[in-house]
């Protein structure tokens, strides 16, 4: 890890480092008993990296994922995202960060069932405050990027699992986020479709997109250029591999 910045509290990350966690900790109060899900995770992810985060259940990878996704705030340490310290931001500011900097892809797709593919992809742009016309244009573009230009008016139940996940990816990309954050993106897909989705991720990475993916499947993690393994709330291994 010679490329990593020697970071101390009070420092600012180098501009190339898009995600930097410094001794990131998250403890939960479970009815008087304090559960320390993360116990000081220091991690640096550069622009255009493709990182898989692995670990057995209970290792803290979901907690880390929520923190990186700005859905949760740490109880200790620092988190810098795209040059901004987000670990001490308030609720509304975090919502703004999620809207601008992060594109989520969920295991269960999380599409609005009654809305068309196009409208689903438009959602982040609504909260970004864009006008209807511009929204539609950008959403259509994002759908074309994932190869669904001809499925825009379809509702989720008229799409296959792979197509649904591609709609979700288009939604994640539509705001041009700093990181694509995927949580078990192939967990609900068969292996053929999984391969298809991994190809989409690979292509996006080649186009310069930073991708962070949480998974427990080794063959999915194998697509990433770097695998970080968590164990008991700490980084256990951090390895680069040939994609």
């Amino acid at each position, binding site marked *: 890890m010679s490329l990593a910045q020697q970071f101390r509290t009070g420092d600012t990350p180098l501009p190339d480092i898009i995600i930097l966690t410094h001794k990131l900790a998250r403890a939960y109060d479970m009815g008087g008993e304090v559960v320390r899900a993360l116990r000081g995770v220091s991690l640096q992810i550069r622009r255009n990296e493709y990182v898989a985060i692995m670990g057995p259940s209970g290792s803290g990878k979901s907690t880390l994922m929520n923190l990186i996704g700005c859905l949760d705030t740490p109880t200790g340490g620092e988190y810098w995202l795209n040059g901004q310290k987000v670990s001490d931001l308030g609720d509304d500011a975090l*919502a*703004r960060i999620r809207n601008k900097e992060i594109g*989520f892809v*969920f295991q269960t797709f*999380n599409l609005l069932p*009654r809305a068309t593919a196009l409208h689903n992809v438009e*959602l982040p742009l609504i909260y970004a405050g864009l006008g209807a016309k511009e929204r539609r244009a950008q959403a259509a573009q994002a759908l074309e990027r994932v190869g669904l230009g001809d499925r825009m008016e379809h509702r989720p139940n008229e799409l296959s699992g792979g197509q649904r996940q591609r709609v979700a990816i288009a939604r994640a990309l539509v705001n041009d986020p700093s990181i694509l954050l995927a949580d078990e993106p192939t967990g609900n897909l068969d292996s053929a479709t999984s391969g298809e989705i991994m190809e989409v991720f690979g292509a996006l990475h080649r186009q310069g997109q930073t991708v962070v993916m949480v998974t427990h499947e080794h063959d999915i993690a194998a697509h990433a250029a770097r695998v970080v393994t968590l164990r008991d709330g700490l980084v256990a291994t951090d390895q680069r591999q040939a994609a």
Partner: protein
Amino acid sequence: MAFLEAVRLALQTLRAQKLKSGFSLIGVFIGVAFFIGAWSITNGINVYMTEKFAGTIIGVNTFHLRRRPNFTPNVSDSMWRAWARRPRITFGDAEAVAAGLTVPVLSAWQSSDNVTIEANGKQVRDADVTGATERYFEIKNLPIAQGRAFSAQEARSGVPVVVIGSEVADKLFAGRDPIGKSVRIGGKPYRVIGVVEPQGKLFGFSLDRFAVAPALSPVQDLVNPPGVVDALIVKAGSVAQMRDAMAEAEGIMRSRRHLRPRQDNNFVLETSEGVLEFWGGIQRILFVFGPALVSISLVVGGIVIMNIMLMAVAERTREIGLRKSLGARRRDIMRQFLAESVTLAGLGGALGVVTGVLLTFALKAVSPLPTTLSGVSIVLGLMLGGLTGIVAGVYPASRAARLDPIVALRQE
């Protein structure tokens, strides 16, 4: 997120759940419809009372000298018995007051009863037959459409002539010219000399079923005991003159009846104010019960909407989580659900307004209630609906807005 966006989203959701939405807005719908309907009725009666009723029955700047009030809400038995013991207004009283007033006024005698009028083998039952003096038509604002009114001389000498209302003319003469023809009132013949212009209806009662004959004609035996009038009607040019004339009339009557200073009047000087006061009493009751009923339906409607919204929040927890993860702030979620409940209630309110308006016209068409639609009530009705939506939506919406996105996303 723009409010319009939120409303569009709300409409989408409502369209997807038509039945549930339909039920949930019934309360607001009923409340607003009732509100508009009640407002129209009250407003209509009010317009009627002030413009038509008081003017028609009593007259503008006019007072009636009577034994007892004609329009009286809730009179106790003892009061009624006291009134019945009062001396009647005699011809002598009426003459003395009319002669003694120094304020320039018009005055006429009036005594009425319901009597059948016959002619050509046809009859008009229970017509309002009045014995009056010649100024009566002027004071009561009864323009003659055909023929003429009777003269002062005819009134004084008691010639058996009669001026009839348009309905009486139509019923008895069916389109033929009634002037100069004979009608029988209480078995005695009268020559028709005039027909009054149609006066329309009041609370569904025709104002054209009447006949007016000279006070001293044989009609006097039908309407009152000998030498007695129901009222002396006095019309002044202004309110001030009316007050002066009333003071004079009161003085004349008190001295004629030898009332000592501490004794109450044993007669009454009734003005249209008295009638309006009577109506005011009824209106006050309406103004208490109307809003109470409206608020009950709106409160019930609001509770229903609140429950529907709480259900919606529970059902769509995952959606809320997703929206938050995509960048929706608390206030965006809050606005979305508030817009939904306001849209629900607003829709109920709009339907209520439409129904209320239809109700207003329907009532006007089929019932004697003189309803009058007012724009204010429509605006207020819509506002009430929307307000119910806001009040009912705040709690569910704030619950939705406070959801933790992680917990919400995890929900199945």
